[in-house]
């Protein structure tokens, strides 16, 4: 791995895909309004839940807003990188253009995961960061170095888990060809990341921490924000993220062995 080469290639990716996406300027505006409305909608839903209750799953409204903030950032990252790239795998395999990707003198996973970028997701990420800053104020969280480091670690782990989940499902395209609907299933499961894990019943909680670790994605970073997270939870998230990254990589290499181009 030559890091410099990859950085250079990534700069080119950024340049070309930004140039092509900026051709659709009204589209970006519409996407921005969508992101804002979607955040307003989730806060509206949350306020319905809290209108007669002070606590939900042990979280106050102000604290639950942190989860919304982190969810919005992660959703923005999904829309910027994961969604445009990984849905492209389906196209590559259906049309047989994956061959060209594999022939390139560069890592195929790198190429497939980072080729495209959707700039409207940036606005969503910023929206989430604003919400987080607002939450830091209303929850009177004092910023210090260990807090910053821990929250950065947990949020990056969430990003890795999320990426691995997306990449995992997209990789199965090599066998099943059509995976649009599997992606829809993942999306609907990810939806519960908007709410604190404790607000669900025990069986769902188990399901969403063991089978699909959505629980880790938003709840643990939010607990770090509030300073109520135990150390073992953070450690567990790091381990889960590492395991997921390595498995998804192995799975991709394994899947490529079964890949036999289109119409062969």
């Amino acid at each position, binding site marked *: 791995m030559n890091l410099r080469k990859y950085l250079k290639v990534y700069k080119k990716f950024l340049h070309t895909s930004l140039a092509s996406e900026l051709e*659709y300027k*009204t*589209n970006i505006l*519409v*996407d921005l*309004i*969508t992101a804002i*409305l*979607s955040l307003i*909608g*989730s806060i*509206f*839903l949350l*306020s*319905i*839940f809290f*209108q*007669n*209750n002070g606590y*939900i*799953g042990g979280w106050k409204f102000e604290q639950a807003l942190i989860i919304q903030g982190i969810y919005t950032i992660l959703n923005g990252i999904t829309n910027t990188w994961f969604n445009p790239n990984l849905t492209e795998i389906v196209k590559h395999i259906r049309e047989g253009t994956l061959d060209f990707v594999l022939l390139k003198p560069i890592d195929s996973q790198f190429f497939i995961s980072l080729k495209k970028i959707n700039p409207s997701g940036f606005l969503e990420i910023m929206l989430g960061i604003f919400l987080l800053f607002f939450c830091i104020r209303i929850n009177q969280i004092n910023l210090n170095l260990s807090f910053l480091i821990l929250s950065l670690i947990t949020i990056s782990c969430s990003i890795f888990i999320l990426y691995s989940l997306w990449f995992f499902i997209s990789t199965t395209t090599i066998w*099943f060809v*059509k995976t*649009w*609907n*599997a992606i*829809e*299933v993942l*999306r*609907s499961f990810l*939806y*519960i990341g908007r*709410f604190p894990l404790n*607000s*669900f*019943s025990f069986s*769902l909680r188990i399901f969403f921490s063991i089978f699909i670790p959505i629980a880790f994605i938003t709840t643990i970073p939010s607990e770090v924000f509030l300073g109520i997270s135990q150390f073992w939870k953070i450690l567990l998230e790091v381990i889960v993220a590492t395991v997921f990254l390595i498995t998804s990589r192995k799975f991709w290499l394994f899947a490529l062995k079964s890949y036999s181009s289109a119409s062969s």
Partner: protein
Amino acid sequence: MMEYRVEIALWAISGIIPFFMLNIWTNNNLNESINLSDVLISRYFLSAFFVRQFSVVWVVFSFEEDSLMGKVSPYLIQPLNPFFRYFAQHLAEQITRFPFALIIAFFFFIFNPESIWIPNLGILLLSIVSTFLSFLIQFLIQSIVACLCFWTEKASSIERLLFIPTLFLSGLLAPVASFPAYVKSWIYLTPFPYLIDFPANLLSGNDTNISGGLSMQILWIFLLLPLFKKIWSDGTKKYTAMGS
């Protein structure tokens, strides 16, 4: 359609968000504040799942793809409006989805045996009619958005924008009865509560104004149909085939 059984099964699973919401509602006893018992609210969300399964529309995505690929031109020569083609596709897929939805309902009843109910025949027929009307409303709205493809290439982003109020206001995530008063005052004038909330309340046997709901659904269809016809005729006049 039967060739895509796994696809459709997955598509049915992807509609289970109402069950997650139900879990939040009952697990935190939120339903007490709107005077709905656990049984009634679980029936409501199961009905919402059914109504959503049989009223989901994706015509804008099909039309956008066809128009970008240049497939619309041959359709336009045919004597039938191409939207009938999409309409038939939707109906066919709804029928294929029916067994999968029943299986999911079966599992739901295994976990919640107390919420089993059998609506009487009249109510069942009325709720099928109102689900179909809800499907028609959504199909018309999306077809209008799809016609925007004649002016802009990416109409699907407008659809994603419209989906947000549909998601939050239609009653898929929370029954409209639980909405704060400042929203309830105007929401019944919009089409949203008639998409999920009204048919689901009807099917689950909760109190609703049956004649009022049905007439509002029909009213919206009569408002949207001429709009669609207008935008379709304007759009086809504007249309130039790809590469011309």
